[in-house]
């Protein structure tokens, strides 16, 4: 029994991500992707017009997964502060984290490809907008007062990204617990919360 076309398509896209992580954007070939996915090169060409189109589709699919996961965290239960902590800490990497390796690979390409730039701008914009919305929600709920929600969102994602790069590539710096604590502390500072008030808002 042959599998539905949508399964085939997503298997091909998973194979693209594996290939990017293993051999990189430059050396990845359509034939390599086809053999990883266990399909013919012709079938890959049937679904995608070019290597660039294939890469863009794979990144878009990976980005959609990230966005869906983030939306679930942001729309979940709890105070806005609690959900901010979740959005920023559940995205922290393990060493050799495949998803982070993919995005680290992709950052290097953003200046060289308009399609990739668009996917990354969209993904980055989604995280920024999610965090700003949570900060504004927290302010409306009287959890905290922040002068510059936009700047706070940029600073918080910057710290998380910087820690994640170090952790993903070198596995050094600090362990998972320390990273968690650093991001939590940064949230506290950026929202101008005392440790006691922060604990109260994140106790559940």
């Amino acid at each position, binding site marked *: 029994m042959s599998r539905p076309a949508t399964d085939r398509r997503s298997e091909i896209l998973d194979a693209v991500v594996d290939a990017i*992580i*293993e*051999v*990189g*954007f*430059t050396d990845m070939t359509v034939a390599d992707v086809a053999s990883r996915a266990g399909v013919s090169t012709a079938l890959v060409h049937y679904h995608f017009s070019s290597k660039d189109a294939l890469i863009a589709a794979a990144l878009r699919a990976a980005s959609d997964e990230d966005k869906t996961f983030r939306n679930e965290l942001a729309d979940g239960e709890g105070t806005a502060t609690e959900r901010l902590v979740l959005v920023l800490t559940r995205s922290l990497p393990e060493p*050799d984290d495949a998803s982070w*390796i993919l995005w*680290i*690979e*992709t*950052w*290097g*390409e*953003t*200046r*060289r490809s308009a399609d990739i*730039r668009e996917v*990354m*701008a969209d993904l*980055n914009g989604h995280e920024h907008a999610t965090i700003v919305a949570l900060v504004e929600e927290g302010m409306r709920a009287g959890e905290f007062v922040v002068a510059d929600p936009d*700047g706070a969102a*940029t*600073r918080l*994602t*910057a*710290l*998380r*990204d*910087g*820690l994640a*790069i*170090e952790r993903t*590539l*070198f596995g*050094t*710096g*600090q362990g998972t617990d*320390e990273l968690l604590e*650093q991001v939590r502390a*940064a949230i506290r*500072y950026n929202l*101008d919360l005392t440790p006691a008030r922060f604990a109260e808002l994140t106790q559940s």
Partner: protein
Amino acid sequence: MARLSPDERRRAIIEATLAVARRNGLGATTVRDVADEMGTSSGLVHHYFDSMDEVLAVAFEHAAGADLERARAVVAEAPTATEQLDAFIACYAPAQSDWTMQLWLDAWAEAARRPALRNVSQRLNRAWQELVRSIVADGVTAGEFATDDPDAAAWRLLSVLDGLALQVVAHEALIGRDEVVAWTRAAADRELLPSAPAATRAATRTRR
């Protein structure tokens, strides 16, 4: 290219590699590209280097290491730890057109596949962290800063800077070098002057 010493040859290969990497990216730079850039054969490159990984690692160290040396020199000139930290931040914060930052992004992207490049970027990263750690530790000794963990504080400051640089260079976010400098300084104040209330800290900073 007649009569170059081995050192000069290696240097010429490095320069050619950086010229190609600037156009195509570090990961897409091949032995053939470098040879073409020099108007010579791939054999010459192979004669002076064991692998393309080694060529890329040495080229990256040459370009990114120069930034570190410059920062060390500027930091050494500053009289107080506070001014040393400001000097470091000014050196490290990228402009949007920053070519070295793009090299760093390329090196990170290639790190998983190229051990030599990974080792160089890890070593340089640690050297930057050590520079910040020593500034912070000196500041604590001099009574300018207060922290019980200069090592962790240095990692955090470097991480904020890396993440902000990423926003500027890769994401083309609507923040510029000035914001990167201002926000990193604010983060440093928060890290290193924990007992002073925010308003006092801001005032102290402006007066200085």
